[in-house]
């Protein structure tokens, strides 16, 4: 249903744009450890797509797609991915964040293990940044009252 204050042009354009934005975000994240880009930048781009959803479709619609709990969960999961990658190294006997040691469990030599380790970290950072950006945005526009706003 389209409300009075909503604009069909904006909504349509957004529908088309958002997948590409998200794809680009994923691309930036995935290439962060080899070229310019990375978790933070990619996460911001991903977050921008969600912000666009909120702007174009309104908060209730956006809430239907990603609830506050989910956003929060994602923000923590991202940190977990990051921290656990570091912990794995620690548990395998190396220093914290020493991904080279991941070669013991990964089918790769230490150099590549480090490569994959950084990738995992970038993914974690990307998820966290995305979730935090979205929740910052929603918190600020609603004044911290999600539940009231969604009704």
């Amino acid at each position, binding site marked *: 249903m389209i409300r009075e204050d909503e604009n069909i042009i904006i909504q349509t354009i957004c529908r088309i744009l958002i997948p590409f934005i998200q794809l680009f975000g994923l691309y930036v994240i995935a290439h962060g450890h080899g*070229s310019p880009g990375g978790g933070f930048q990619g996460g911001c781009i991903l977050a921008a797509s969600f912000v666009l959803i909120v702007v174009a479709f309104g908060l209730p619609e956006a809430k239907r797609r990603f609830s506050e709990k989910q956003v929060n969960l994602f923000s923590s999961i991202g940190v977990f991915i990051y921290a656990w990658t570091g912990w794995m190294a620690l548990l395998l006997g190396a220093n914290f964040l020493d991904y080279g040691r991941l070669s013991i469990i990964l089918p790769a030599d230490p150099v590549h293990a480090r490569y994959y380790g950084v990738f995992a970290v970038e993914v974690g950072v990307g998820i966290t940044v995305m979730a935090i950006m979205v929740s910052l945005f929603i918190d*600020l526009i609603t004044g*911290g009252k999600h539940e009231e706003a969604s009704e």
Partner: protein
Amino acid sequence: MIEYIIAKYNYWAYIVLMMIGFYAMIGKGNLIKKLLGMNVFQWAIILFYVSTSVKKGGATIPIIQNGHGPVTHAVDVAQYLNPLPHVLMLTAIVVGVSTTGVALSLAIMIYRKYKTLEEDEILQIEEYEALEPEE
């Protein structure tokens, strides 16, 4: 003198920006303006950091072509920028964003309580409340 300024214009810009931000943080009465000043201040520092890594003469991003290929070239330092300040500033940006986020939410809380964001008006309300005996 003027050449001296132009030669290092980015540093001058950083100083000017920083002072603008500093003035806004200290001198402005509106909380949001203070916040804007704070952001300008932070961006000025980011500009400063990034300026330090600049190299003249076609230096570019530090990605070594064929770095993993069969033939590796000795890399000339003049060819790429120092990436570290950029990375540091990435962290600083994150910090800046978080600070702004916290500050905005504080501003919302303050607005909800006082219905204004002007510092002098808030202080007036405070004084008024202090005079009123609490029940």
